[in-house]
């Protein structure tokens, strides 16, 4: 049985990692997509499609994987 509280907590952990390490992520992965799981970057690529393919080829369980685009410093994303 799926524990939804656990799923939410795992994703929150990835969110917290992305938030607290944002400056570091911008330095290392500017203009790239990063995939974060278990509080660490597990893959990154300039192309979202390529990143998705990498995750598939690695057989990564995607349920709690957080993917974010990291803009270079000085650029903000508006929705």
């Amino acid at each position, binding site marked *: 049985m799926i524990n939804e*509280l656990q*799923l*939410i907590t795992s994703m929150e952990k990835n969110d917290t990692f992305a938030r607290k390490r944002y400056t570091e992520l911008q330095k290392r992965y500017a203009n790239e997509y990063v995939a974060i799981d278990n509080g660490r970057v597990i893959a990154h690529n300039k192309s*979202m499609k390529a990143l998705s393919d990498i995750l598939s080829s690695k057989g990564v369980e995607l349920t*709690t994987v957080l*993917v974010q685009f990291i803009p270079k410093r000085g650029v903000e*994303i508006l*929705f």
Partner: protein
Amino acid sequence: MQLPLVLDKEKIRLTVVASVNFSGRVPIPVSFIVDTGSPSTFVDEFNSAKVRVFTKNLTFDHDSLMGGTKVAMYKAGEVVMKFKNEAGDLFEIKYNDMKVANTGWTRREAIYSSVSILGLDFFLKNKLSLHIDTVKDIAYIETDGSA
């Protein structure tokens, strides 16, 4: 009842993680940006694809312009969403107008932002209120508990 949000002062955003249960699928956790400027609530297709909900199998609803990029929105129908409340327990909200945003990965020069949005429509249809106190550094959704 309060559903806590994260006030991200680095990226200047309000975020919340909720589980989303598309009809007949297992739930997935989705990180939403709370955007009162958005008239639509949607899950990005990277996330919905985790439970094999693909836009190619959904009915087109409308196009949205996000940061100058056209993003197609598809009807996902009713979903069950669960949020953590202030006590750390799950609180369920049914939402019958969820959309899935098409990624548009193949568009040249288009930045696929991989974002899921909790729009103003979600607050209106569920009669929710939004509270932000930047001095106390807290933000939350308030519900009377009957959603």
